[in-house]
C-alpha cells in the first residue's frame, strides 16, 4: 500500500504550469530519487508534498495513517544559515518544535530525542560548537539530525550533497542509505547525480518534458535513461 500518492498533479508559478498531470506513489520503505534538470520543478514538487505550496490542480494524498507531522525535511541551505550564530544542539532541538501538543518550551523528552539523533548522526561531540564553524558535511548531519527529530517515517531531502566534496558526498549517501535500510525510513530525495540515484534508489521519478516514474530496473531500460546518461558523459 502506498503512503503518499500524487494524483494528476499540476504545479507551477503564477499561472504557468511547469509540471503537468503528474502521477506517482510512494510505499513504506521506498527510496525514491527525483531527478531532472534545473528548473524542471523538482523543488516545487517537494514543497507541494510538504504542503508549503498548493498545487494548481490535483491532489497529494497521505495514506496508512501518515500525517504531515511524520514527514521530515532537509531543505537546501539558505544564505541566512551560513553565518547564523547558533549552537548545534540549539538547531537539532528545533526539530522538536512541533512535536506533540502545542508547547512553548522543550521538555526533557525533546532533549533526549535531540541527543539520540545527534548520536545517530555521530555529531554529539559537536553539540556545543557553532553551526557556522562546521564543514559542509557536518552542517548537513546537523540538519539531518534535526529532520529526524521532527519525523520518524518519511524524510524529504532536497539535494543533500550539494556543495560537498566527493568523499563527504559518499559518506552522506551511505548515511541516508542506512536510515532507509536499517531504520526503515522512507526516503524521497532530489538529486542531480543520476549515478548515485541508480546506486541507492529503489524508484526513480524523472521530471523534464517527458515524465518517467518507475523502479530503478525499469528506468535503466528506458530511453530517457539512455539519453540522460549519454548527455552527462559528453
Amino acid at each position: 500500500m502506498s503512503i503518499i500518492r500524487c494524483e494528476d498533479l499540476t504545479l507551477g508559478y503564477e499561472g504557468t504550469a511547469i509540471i503537468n498531470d503528474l502521477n506517482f506513489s510512494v510505499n513504506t520503505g521506498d527510496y525514491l530519487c527525483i531527478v531532472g534538470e534545473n528548473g524542471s520543478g523538482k523543488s516545487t514538487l517537494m514543497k507541494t508534498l510538504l504542503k508549503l505550496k498548493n498545487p494548481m490542480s490535483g491532489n497529494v494524498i497521505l495514506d496508512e495513517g501518515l500525517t504531515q507531522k511524520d514527514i521530515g525535511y532537509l531543505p537546501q541551505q539558505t544564505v541566512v544559515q551560513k553565518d547564523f550564530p547558533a549552537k548545534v544542539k540549539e538547531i537539532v532541538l528545533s526539530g522538536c518544535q512541533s512535536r506533540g501538543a502545542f508547547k512553548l518550551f522543550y521538555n526533557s523528552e525533546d532533549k533526549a530525542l535531540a541527543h539520540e539523533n545527534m548520536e545517530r548522526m555521530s555529531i554529539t561531540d559537536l553539540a556545543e560548537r557553532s553551526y557556522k564553524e562546521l564543514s559542509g558535511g557536518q552542517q548537513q548531519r546537523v540538519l539531518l539530525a534535526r529532520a529526524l527529530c521532527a519525523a520518524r517515517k518519511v524524510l524529504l531531502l532536497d539535494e543533500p550533497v550539494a556543495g560537498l566534496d566527493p568523499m563527504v558526498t559518499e559518506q552522506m549517501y551511505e548515511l541516508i542509505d542506512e536510515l532507509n535500510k536499517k531504520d526503515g525510513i522512507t526516503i524521497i530525495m532530489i538529486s542531480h547525480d543520476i549515478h548515485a540515484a541508480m546506486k541507492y534508489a529503489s524508484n526513480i521519478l524523472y521530471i523534464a518534458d517527458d515524465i518517467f516514474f518507475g523502479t530503478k530496473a525499469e528506468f535503466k531500460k528506458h530511453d530517457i535513461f539512455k539519453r540522460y546518461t549519454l548527455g552527462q558523459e559528453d
Partner: protein
Amino acid sequence: MIEKLAFYFQYPFVRYALIVGVLIALCSSLLGVTLVLKRFSFIGDGLSHVAFGAIAVASIMNLTNQMVLVLPTTVICAVVLLHTGQNAKIKGDAMIAVVSVGALAIGYLLMNIFSTSSNLSGDVCSTLFGSTSILTLTVSEVWVCVILSAVIVALFILFYNKIFAVTFDENFASAVGTNAKFYNLMIAVMIAVIIVLAMNLVGSLLISALVIFPALSAMRMFKSFSSVTICSAVISVICAAVGIIISILASTPVGSTIVAVNIVMFVISCIVNTIRGE
C-alpha cells in the same frame, strides 16, 4: 561629575527619560538579532519613515494623541513589508526603500503645505533626529512605554523557541507544522510597536542603529543564539544608559549620543573578536 548627575536625577523627567530609554533599547535589541539574521536590517529604517509620515498627518489633523494614528499605520506597514518580503514582484529591499522614502517625502510635503507651526524646520529636525521630547515625557507616556515594553519582552521570552525556529529556517518550520506566518506577523507587529516607541528617543532616522548595532556587536563576540540575544540586550541597555547620562552631562543630543556609544561598542567588539580569532 557625580554631584552634577545627582543634581539632575532629582528631576523626575530625567529619571523618566532614563527608564524609557533603557526599556526601548532592551526591546529593540531583542528583536534586532532576528531582524539582522533575517536580512531585514533596514525594516526599522523604513518603518520609522512611515511613522514620520504618520506623525506629519497626525499633526496636520491636530490630533492630541498622535499614537492613535501612528501606531496602527506603522503596524500595517510592518505587516505588509514582512509579508511581501519573499515573493513579491518588487523584492524586499526595494519595497522597503519605496515605502520609506515615499512616506518621508509625503510627510514632509504635507507638513509644508498644511503646517500651522512657526518653526517648521525645527519640528521636522526633531522628528528625524530625536528631540528633547524624551525629556518632556508625561507620567502616562512613561506608563504606556513600560507596559508595551513589558508585553514585548514577555512575548519574546514565551515565544523564544518559535522565534529561533522561524528565524533559522522558515521553510523547515512550516514544513513540520509551525505556523511560521503567524510568528512572522507577531515579529512584524512587535517591531512596529518598538519603532513608534523609539521615535521619541532617537528620532526616526536613527532608530535602525538601536536595532542593528547591539545585535552586530553581540554576534562578533558570541556563538549561540541564546548568548547572542542576551548579550545584545545587555549591550543595548548599557549603551542607552551611558548615552543618556553623557548627553545630560555634556548637553549633547540624546539620540545621536546613544548611537555614538553603540558605534564605540561595536568597534570594541570587533577588536575583541579579532584578538580572540588569532
